[in-house]
């Protein structure tokens, strides 16, 4: 495997992907953000402060767990990077702590964010509470209804939740609304984007904040087994947990596997597999693969996992796909549920439905992986407690009730 070219370039391009497709009003703010980020990134004091918070508050480094019984059943080692053990229950907080710290450094007192299921919103509200800042979170009306508990968690943390009733009333519309807010309040507001999406420098910055996952995992695997894994597997919606674990392995002879949500099946039209089924286009400030129709209107996405329910994907994943550096596959809602049950029963770990997608690919590929004597590292990006209600509701409809 050849080394990956250093991306993005100065224009924020990952090959033909990425860039800055935003109203002219925001261009100076993105320049300001990029300059502030580059300075912070080089500043040892900033890095030390961020790492100290990750250690003392978030609980990093997160462990690497060998899934003993699952490994035995499958016939090859499966190693889990336990992002579910972070404070707030998922990897999202690595990024929100970093961005809110940057906001503070830039003197921006007002924090805004978009959220789908609410995980990024909770992580942003948490970071804002930690620094005594005010967070306002945009969330689609449909998601507010489905994720009432997360809405309440954000409010408990002192955040204001704005219900978005435009368009499909989900994550993409919440993101539109957050961008509109930023356009209107750009001088005093910091927009905390939750994934490796959006205009440059966000994909690069979020990657940097999430790469802590892959850096830890890489040295933990080397320490545990004395060699690199053969495969690194992560679920991909926008793609922040995936890029976070992939990036430090990019120049290693390791297969990087991104797993998209195939929802009710790639042929059903109800899925969130932007790379498998989308076409190149621009949404939320970056060029990437999108679910869209022949005119270029964005299609709503579908996945049982709210965190993957997004019609686009981060531009660097699009680049990894196009250059062949990573492979992208898709698993269905049913396969993800199967993996959710299986890990819970064999390891006593309730994975987030997002993370269950990564596991589901491993289960599906098990015969082949066994044959290749694979060592598989899976990013267990979050815990599944948040999904228990959705799984229960699904059981009530039949399906898995008697398991």
């Amino acid at each position, binding site marked *: 495997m050849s080394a990956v070219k250093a991306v993005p370039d100065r*224009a924020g391009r990952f090959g033909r992907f990425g*860039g*800055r*497709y*935003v*109203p*002219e*009003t*925001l*261009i*100076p*703010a993105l320049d300001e953000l990029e300059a502030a980020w580059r300075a912070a990134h080089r500043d040892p004091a900033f890095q030390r402060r961020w790492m100290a918070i990750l250690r003392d508050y978030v609980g990093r480094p997160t462990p690497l767990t060998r899934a003993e019984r699952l490994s035995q059943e499958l016939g090859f080692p499966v190693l889990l990077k336990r992002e579910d053990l972070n404070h707030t229950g998922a990897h999202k907080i690595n990024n929100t702590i970093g961005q809110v710290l940057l906001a503070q450094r830039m003197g921006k007192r007002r924090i805004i964010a978009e959220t789908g299921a609410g995980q990024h919103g909770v992580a942003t509200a948490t970071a804002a509470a930690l620094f005594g800042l005010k967070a306002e979170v945009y969330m689609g009306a449909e998601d507010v209804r489905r994720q009432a508990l997360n809405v309440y968690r954000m409010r408990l943390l002192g955040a204001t939740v704005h219900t978005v009733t*435009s*368009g499909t009333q989900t994550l*993409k*519309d919440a993101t*539109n609304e957050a*961008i*509109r807010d930023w*356009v*209107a*309040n*750009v*001088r005093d507001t910091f927009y905390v984007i939750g994934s490796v999406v959006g205009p440059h420098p966000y994909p690069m910055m979020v990657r940097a904040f999430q790469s802590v996952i892959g850096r830890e995992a890489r040295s933990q695997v080397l320490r545990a087994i004395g060699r690199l894994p053969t495969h690194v597997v992560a679920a991909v919606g926008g793609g922040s947990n995936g890029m976070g674990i992939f990036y430090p392995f990019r120049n290693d002879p390791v297969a990087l596997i991104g797993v998209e949500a195939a929802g009710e099946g790639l042929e059903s039209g109800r899925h969130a597999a932007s790379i498998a089924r989308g*076409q*190149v*286009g*621009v*949404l*939320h*400030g970056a*060029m990437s693969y*999108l679910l*869209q129709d*022949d*005119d*270029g*209107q*964005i299609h709503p996405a579908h996945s049982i996992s709210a965190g993957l329910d997004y019609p686009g994907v981060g531009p660097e994943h699009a680049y990894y796909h196009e250059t062949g550096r990573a492979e992208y596959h898709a698993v269905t809602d049913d396969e993800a549920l199967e993996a959710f049950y299986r890990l819970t029963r064999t390891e006593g770990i309730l994975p987030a439905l997002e993370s269950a997608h990564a596991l589901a690919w491993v289960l599906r590929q098990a015969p082949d992986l066994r044959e290749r004597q694979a060592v598989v590292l899976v990013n267990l990006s979050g815990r599944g407690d948040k999904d228990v209600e959705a799984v229960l509701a699904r059981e009530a409809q039949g399906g898995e009730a008697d398991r």
Partner: protein
Amino acid sequence: MMARREPTGAERIAAAFAAARKAGRAALIPFVTAGVPTLEALPDLLGAVAQAGADLIEVGLPFSDPLADGPVLQRAATWALERGTRVDAVFAALRTVAPHLPPLVLLTYVNLVLRRGMTEFVQAAQEAGISGLIVPDLPWAESDSLRQVAKRGGLALIPLVAPTSTDRHLKDIAGAKGFVYGVSVTGVTGPRQAVDPGVAHLVARVRAEVALPVAVGFGIASPAQARAVGAIADGVIVGSALMSRILDHPDSAVSEARHFVAELRRAVEA
């Protein structure tokens, strides 16, 4: 004698601004979302807007995720898309009426342009009688290739200038065609209570660097505001205020539009 060639879109736009200036007033540029209340009504609607005194007309090609637009134009885009408004059908509707109308400037988001392909999109727009393009999520720094393609098709790609824009941006757009779209507020489209006091400064900054006319939009809601902006700028763009009248009175959209645009026209003449 040489055959007289058709004027390019950029030339038609320049002529429209020049005519208004000669009459001692700002050019009036109403905005209409294609497909509201119906696509069938578009020719009549544009005809009424022209007759009532528009010097140019901005036509919005609806997009599912219009992140530069406020609630009214979001609602208009959703309305149009829910009723099945397709890009080809909008171009077809415009083609029949464009020759009888003032210059048309098409506003759309960049994904619709890319989906069809820049060259094909520009060609289709040009064949539909469009004179210029406004792409609010394509900042000037990303617009090189579309600018080249538009130029070959004789279309002006209209640069936007916001209150936050740097002097560097003003220098970068000096070679643009058509007019400069001055964004009057730091924000999205939609009616405001008052004209932002920064408009005069914005217009002055643009004029110091760019030889093109400056039209100001975003937030101009009333004839009084149109008059105030018209006293400062070379053009006045009114979108949400017109579209909210059309959305609220879909059955009498044509007469609503005619009356409101006529009022705006009287205001910029005063």
